[in-house]
């Protein structure tokens, strides 16, 4: 007991001793945390790139200028920008600074681009974006700073696209826009074009009717509505978001409990379609060939869709049709190819950018094959732009077609696409002129943070100095 008393006393004494200490400790911790936060601030402290040629895309190039970046935004840009003392300065002498490239349509960031169910408007690509995917690494290496991740070209209604920055630890760090548009593909994955269109119309009609009912003040139960009308598809019930591959393998019995969820996803899908039909959200429409464009234009006028045309290689045949809409289209990655007329046997070189230029249809590019087999060069936006220049486009226009124009097309030009005060500091430091074969991305900066440095890129080093491992 005595002993215990002693112990208690000692503990009390110790506690008494600790108390002031702990106060002091708290102080130190606070100070430390303050210091770390300031050092954190220091990392985010103004960044200035000095002495480089600046291509702002909006306005004329500045032969030798300075860009000042603060809190991830461009604070100042010009010939005589005063650099604050606390700023970190990157010497850009002999370098070229321009906005990061914007990828208006790709599916490479998704682990699997296409859903096997063909009508899945309730899905979102956000659930399948892997921030450490090779695609994003290649983006930063090759100067892409923003990208629209869109479901693949083989699903009738493939789900919701999202727009992301190409650097971040989690998807949410990267997201610019979550529901950035619905993807519709007119390429029949199964069956023919008639049934493809009929199925699509049926879905769009559902949305249209729902909107009409709402306008009349009726409150339809969105989920049960299709059932009431006996319009449920004969297919197995559609699955909720998530790993669809797994649930596919489940037996029917196991799928039963998911019916509630299924109704929910039906409702979510209807909401997404309603947004598309109301024109509140754009619709990425993939057209495989010229006749799909005709069908797409019909759908657009019938349902009042706000389209973003994603074109297959042979859609050049419909360039005149698209010209009337005066909208930027997204071209296929293969820009130049040969065709033989099946009737006349006449061989012809098709130069897609030239055809669209002649038809006065503005366009942006896609790249192909990060990691896959591809023709030389078409993996790179600068090369696609250079190809357009080869066939008559001005260099200024071509640079715009890989920066500001795609940003406008996907509705993020208020944030990125050009170097202007107030916009996100997403920019590239290049070793030379953007469209030259010998130019490399030296640094990629996203929201003021250096996310790629060529001097630290081991992969490039390995490729350029090949040795046996």
């Amino acid at each position, binding site marked *: 007991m005595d002993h215990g008393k002693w112990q208690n006393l000692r503990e009390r004494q110790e506690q008494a001793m600790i108390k002031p200490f702990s106060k002091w400790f708290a102080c130190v911790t606070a100070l430390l945390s303050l210091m770390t936060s300031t050092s954190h601030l220091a990392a985010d402290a103004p960044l200035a790139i000095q002495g480089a040629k600046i291509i702002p895309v909006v306005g004329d190039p500045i032969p030798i200028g300075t860009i000042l970046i603060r809190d991830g935004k461009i604070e100042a840009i010009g010939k005589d920008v005063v650099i604050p003392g606390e700023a970190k300065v990157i010497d850009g002498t002999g370098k070229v600074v321009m906005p990061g490239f914007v990828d208006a349509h790709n599916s490479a960031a998704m682990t699997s681009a296409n859903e096997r169910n063909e009508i899945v408007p309730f899905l979102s690509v956000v659930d399948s974006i892997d921030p450490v995917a090779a695609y994003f690494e*290649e983006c930063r290496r090759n100067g892409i700073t923003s990208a629209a991740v869109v479901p693949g070209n083989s699903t009738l209604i493939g789900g919701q696209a999202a727009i992301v920055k190409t650097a971040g630890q989690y998807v949410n760090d990267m997201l610019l826009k979550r529901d950035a548009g619905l993807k519709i593909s007119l390429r029949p994955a199964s069956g023919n074009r008639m049934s493809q269109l009929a199925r699509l119309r049926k879905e769009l009609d559902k949305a249209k009717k729902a909107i009409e009912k709402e306008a009349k003040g009726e409150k339809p139960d969105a989920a049960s509505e299709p059932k009431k009308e006996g319009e449920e598809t004969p297919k197995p019930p559609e699955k909720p978001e998530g790993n669809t591959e797994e649930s596919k393998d489940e037996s029917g019995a196991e799928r039963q409990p998911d019916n509630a969820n299924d109704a929910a996803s039906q409702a979510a899908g209807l909401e997404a379609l309603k947004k598309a039909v109301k024109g509140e959200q754009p619709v990425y429409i993939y057209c495989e060939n010229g006749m799909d464009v005709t069908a797409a234009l019909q759908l657009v006028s019938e349902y009042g869709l706000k389209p973003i045309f994603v074109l297959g290689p042979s859609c050049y045949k419909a360039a005149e049709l698209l010209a009337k809409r005066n909208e930027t289209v997204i071209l296929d990655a293969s820009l130049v190819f*040969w065709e*033989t007329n099946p009737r006349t046997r006449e*061989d012809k*070189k098709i*130069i897609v950018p*030239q055809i669209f230029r002649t038809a006065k249809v503005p366009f942006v590019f896609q790249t192909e*094959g*990060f*990691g*896959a*087999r*591809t*023709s*030389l*060069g078409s*993996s*790179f936006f600068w*090369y696609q732009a*250079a*190809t357009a*220049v*080869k*066939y*008559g486009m001005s*260099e200024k226009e071509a640079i715009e077609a890989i920066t500001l124009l795609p940003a406008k097309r996907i509705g993020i030009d208020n944030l990125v696409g050009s170097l202007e005060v107030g916009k996100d500091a997403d920019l590239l430091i290049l070793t030379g002129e953007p*469209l*030259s*074969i*010998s130019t490399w991305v030296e640094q990629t900066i996203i929201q003021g943070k250096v996310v790629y440095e060529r001097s630290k890129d081991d*992969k490039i080093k*390995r*490729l*350029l*100095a*090949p*040795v*046996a491992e």
Partner: protein
Amino acid sequence: MHRFVFELAEWHKSGACAIVLFWTTLIPCAALGQDKDTGSDRFLIRAKHLYCANGQKDGPGEVFISGGKIKFVGPSIDVSSPVTIIEVDSLMPGIVDAYSSLGLTGGTSEVSREITPEFDTYSAIYWGSRDFLEALGDGVTTVQVIPATESVFSGLACIVKTAGDLGGRTIASSGTAVLAVSSDPTSRNRARARPDGIYMRQPTNRMGVVWIIRSSMNRVRSGGNVAGADPLSTDLLKEVLQGKRKSLAVSRTDFDIRSALDVGDEFGFKPIIYGGDEVYRILDEFKKRDGQVVYTALARSAATSRGSEGTALRWNVPGKLIEAQIPFCLAGESLLDQARFACRFGLSHEQALAAITSRPAEMLGLSDRIGTIATEMDADLVALNGDPLQPTSGILWTMVSGKIYGNDKSKQ
């Protein structure tokens, strides 16, 4: 006439002309009753940048062509007789592709037998093929047509130009003997095929590929006939053994390249390696053994990918080959783009251009005829509207043996 030419040059210098293709037939030409169009075979081409690919520094230059040959190259040529004058920005030699399947029709590989060294690609070329148009559009003027390599002794390569009348465009029929020292010949086999079907063949593995070469060469060396093959095959292989016929081996992995050289050493012939993806892994050995390589891996991808047989692609293998002074050239599809990317990856401008013109010509043993811009060479030329190695530059036209083809109307 001279005055007229001079005026032309002045107009040019004024900087008013962005488009540099200028086409005229001078009055005396018409007076003499010569064809006003391309009928005349005398050309004077004035280039702001003349890339001769023979070590000379590039700069302004003029090339005089007559009778399908380059007759004179110099800084300024005064021609006193009728001539068609063309002004271009850049002029380079026609591109030479040492590894092509241009125009090959009706199957490119024999799948019923392993030993068909006498099969000649020249007999299977469809001269009206679109391939030739495409090649001309890409500035390719000479190709070596090689059979696909799904049989061990695949056949004979031939060398042809991409345009012209049949006699004129053939440089060599029944040329180099093509060997496949790779996994290609095993690819046709089916695991459970009928024993008498064409899918049931030896070799079913890569060891068998080498074994077929060794056993065939052994038989020929000891005066026998190649098993199951035509006597002609025996004669052909004899020529290879006696050094009377050149040979090439399609090999990509380091061990296949080594095997090709080994089997060559064994029987005293030296195949040039075609493919060569992994030659960088055995550079010192390859150099010591006097290897030569027609490198095709750059064609496949500038992005990161794997070649056939799972070879990891490397960007600057050409740079390593030049550093090691190993004879090499680039070959395969999109050769001009290959040169562009080779330059991006480390070659100098001059080295990159040579890798698709003079170097392949050397590898084919034709450097006295094609691959450079010099006197008495074939008039195989490519005109561009800018630096050939910039992706923004387009080909204006391609000249083969003094005739102009593939005018890109978009640039006029």
